[in-house]
């Protein structure tokens, strides 16, 4: 048992940490967000140059063969930088879906384009009443020659407006809530029958409403739900790591503030009530870090029940720790923490949105409870 990174992982960590430090200061991020696309295409090219876009792809698909630990390292650094580029949508979620659900030939064709920064993806699965249930799919897929035709409406498609191609869940057979009969499809974002309305999200990123009216699509997998769930579990593990980076930044900022802000003639960090509250933030952070590591280690687990338990547990911990740290970070900063101009609120907002992504703490707690918990006799 050891928690150490190997040499390659250490190098990766150094380079991605350096990138965030040099290129992703709060003011720089503001400039990236001000570009018409809502992110920096220069930064996207840089991520390609550094090999980060190819990180989780096999060498056969033009990538570098990184696993969940490598993803964890990158995601944590991106959480500290509040990176706004569509990395999660394209590389982690999109790439994961291609790896888990698509034919190797499709992956071999698309992988190199992603790695080179020439193809951006998005995953469209949320519908008006599906909430966090990946199996709740009303969008229909009808066979038409060699292709399928999709009809339906998808909501809050992360980076859906930046995407060149969109991965879509659509029902091939069965009724709206059936686990069987959900296909995974690939549509060209500019194809006839695809309309997109992009908008900013609360955390400074972008999303889109996507309406499909007779859009022609390529079927990647006919009965795709188990593979989709695995890819989403891996994506959740990455979100957990990103959240740890975000929490760490809030903790650092708050601690720094406590040491420098003076009231009543002394640093406010000398007051015991604030010391204890920042200790509780640290305890929440360390619990989250531990569970993010647990999630990373369990993300590749093929047994879906074991994997689900671990990922659900981690997402609960992340949601709770994140809410605690975020709210306390704002409170301990006082008024300055409330301003758009200062960074801590932006971390708080990203953290809050991470809890709303792919199941909040309550949702995953209920899921874990239904699976019998983590320890001992599962009833």
């Amino acid at each position, binding site marked *: 048992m050891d928690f150490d990174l190997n040499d390659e992982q250490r190098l990766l960590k150094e380079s991605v940490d350096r990138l965030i430090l040099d290129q992703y200061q709060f003011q720089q991020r503001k400039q990236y967000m001000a570009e018409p696309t809502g992110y920096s295409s220069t930064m996207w090219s840089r991520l390609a140059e550094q090999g980060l876009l190819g990180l989780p792809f096999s060498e056969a698909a033009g990538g570098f063969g990184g696993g969940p*630990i490598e993803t964890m390292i990158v995601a944590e650094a991106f959480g500290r930088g509040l990176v706004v580029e569509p990395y999660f949508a394209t590389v982690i979620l999109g790439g994961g879906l291609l790896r888990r659900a698509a034919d190797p030939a499709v992956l071999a064709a698309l992988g190199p384009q992603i790695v080179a920064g020439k193809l951006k993806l998005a995953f469209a699965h949320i519908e008006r009443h599906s909430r966090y249930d990946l199996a709740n799919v009303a969008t229909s897929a009808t066979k038409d020659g060699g292709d399928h035709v999709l009809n339906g409406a998808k909501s809050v498609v992360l980076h859906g407006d930046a995407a060149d191609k969109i991965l879509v869940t659509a029902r091939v057979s069965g009724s709206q809530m059936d686990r069987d009969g959900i296909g995974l499809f690939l549509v060209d974002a500019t194809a006839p029958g695809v309309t997109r309305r992009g908008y900013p999200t609360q955390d400074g990123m972008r999303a889109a409403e996507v309406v499909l009216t007779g859009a022609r699509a390529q079927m990647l997998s006919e009965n795709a739900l188990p593979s989709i769930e695995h890819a989403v579990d891996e994506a959740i593990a990455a979100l957990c790591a990103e959240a740890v980076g975000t929490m760490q930044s809030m903790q650092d900022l708050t601690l720094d503030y406590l040491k420098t802000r003076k009231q009543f003639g002394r640093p406010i960090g000398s007051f*015991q009530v*604030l*010391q204890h509250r920042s200790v509780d933030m640290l305890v929440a952070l360390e619990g989250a870090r531990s569970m993010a590591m647990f999630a990373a280690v369990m993300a590749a687990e093929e047994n879906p029940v074991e994997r689900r338990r671990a990922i659900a547990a981690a997402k609960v911990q992340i949601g709770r720790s994140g809410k605690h740290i975020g709210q306390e970070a704002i409170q301990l900063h006082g008024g300055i923490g409330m301003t758009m101009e200062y960074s801590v609120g932006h971390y708080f907002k990203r953290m809050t949105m991470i809890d709303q992504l792919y199941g909040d703490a309550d949702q995953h707690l209920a899921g874990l409870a239904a699976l019998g*918990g*983590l320890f*001992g006799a599962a*009833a």
Partner: protein
Amino acid sequence: MDLNFTEEEIAFRDDVRRFFRSAIPDSIRAKVAEGEGLTRDDMIQSQRILNQHGYATPNWPVEWGGKPWTPVQVYLYQDEMQLANVPSPIPFNVSMVGPVIAQFGCQEIKQRFLPATANADIFWCQGFSEPGSGSDLASLRTRAERKGDKYVVNGQKIWTTLAQYGEWIFCLVRTDTDAKQQEGISFLLIDMKTPGITVRPIVLIDGGREVNEVFFDNVEVPVENLVGEENKGWDYAKFLLGNERTGIARVGASKAKVARIKELAAIEQSGGRPLIQDPRFREKLASVEIELKALEMTQLRVVADERKMAKGRPNPASSILKLKGSVIQQQLTELVMEVVGPYAMPYQRDFDGRNEPVVGPDYATEAAPMYFNYRKVSIYGGSNEIQRNIIAKAILGL
């Protein structure tokens, strides 16, 4: 990063697992599982079995019966011990006074006390806290005045756990009243049979008698019972308190308790079905399990870091483990009480001899007393507020 144990570590784990589950009598392990108090004989019997097999004092120097184990092995030993509901070796002997004597005592005092301490031929108790010195331990006032080849001890200790069993007590005493608080304290070993010592029990809210007041009235103690140097006792006490680094989280014990709660909740009914099928109850339990998993992972991270740290130095991360571990233990006692429902009510046993016929299931008897009693774990060993002070200073630099 690899969270799997090596083959050697797994073999080690299987060895200790087999040993704990076969060598320690089931009757003793059952008491631990249900939270029943152990008798003095139970504790001594269990420790002697451990000692016979070299498992009583792994944290001691090898020449005095310790093991050259890696931090991972120490972790596995503790975890398996707790999972098997084996009583921890008497902490006063093994985690507290033993290591101090081994580290700071002269050869003669080591020979005199260490083998007997390992084998529980001496039952130790700890004389640290005083009525006016709880969290502010260094303000202690029990006085030891040097008169010839004796110290004369006057004062009072409190919260002395199991002093009723104690044959010897290790005390922090003030030997210099002029020096700075921390610099006038010595570490003294006192035979409880010495004239002038009075032990008075303190009954706790669960009806248990585990703590006491100990009064010292002109108690004469030979100077050779001083450990190390005079007025260096505060350093030794800090060493003692820093010694317990990761076991304090009690992760194994809490895992065993979770498994037990699941068994009991499958027996107890609510609304015509086993309580364990109630989603609300399951969520409450799952919630604590997540905290426990996070604690276990954090503990493993601390264990992995131990390899890189100097031995005998307090690791402030252990304060995080204490903070979380204590609260989880408390939450689990609440859940046991919730499981047994109305059967938590009958007051059936106490140490004044009350021993009513059991009402309801056996396992309900200790549910409420255990909950009441476990409020102590966030108070003793440095209250959770003191742990926060330590973390604020040592980790956060506030």
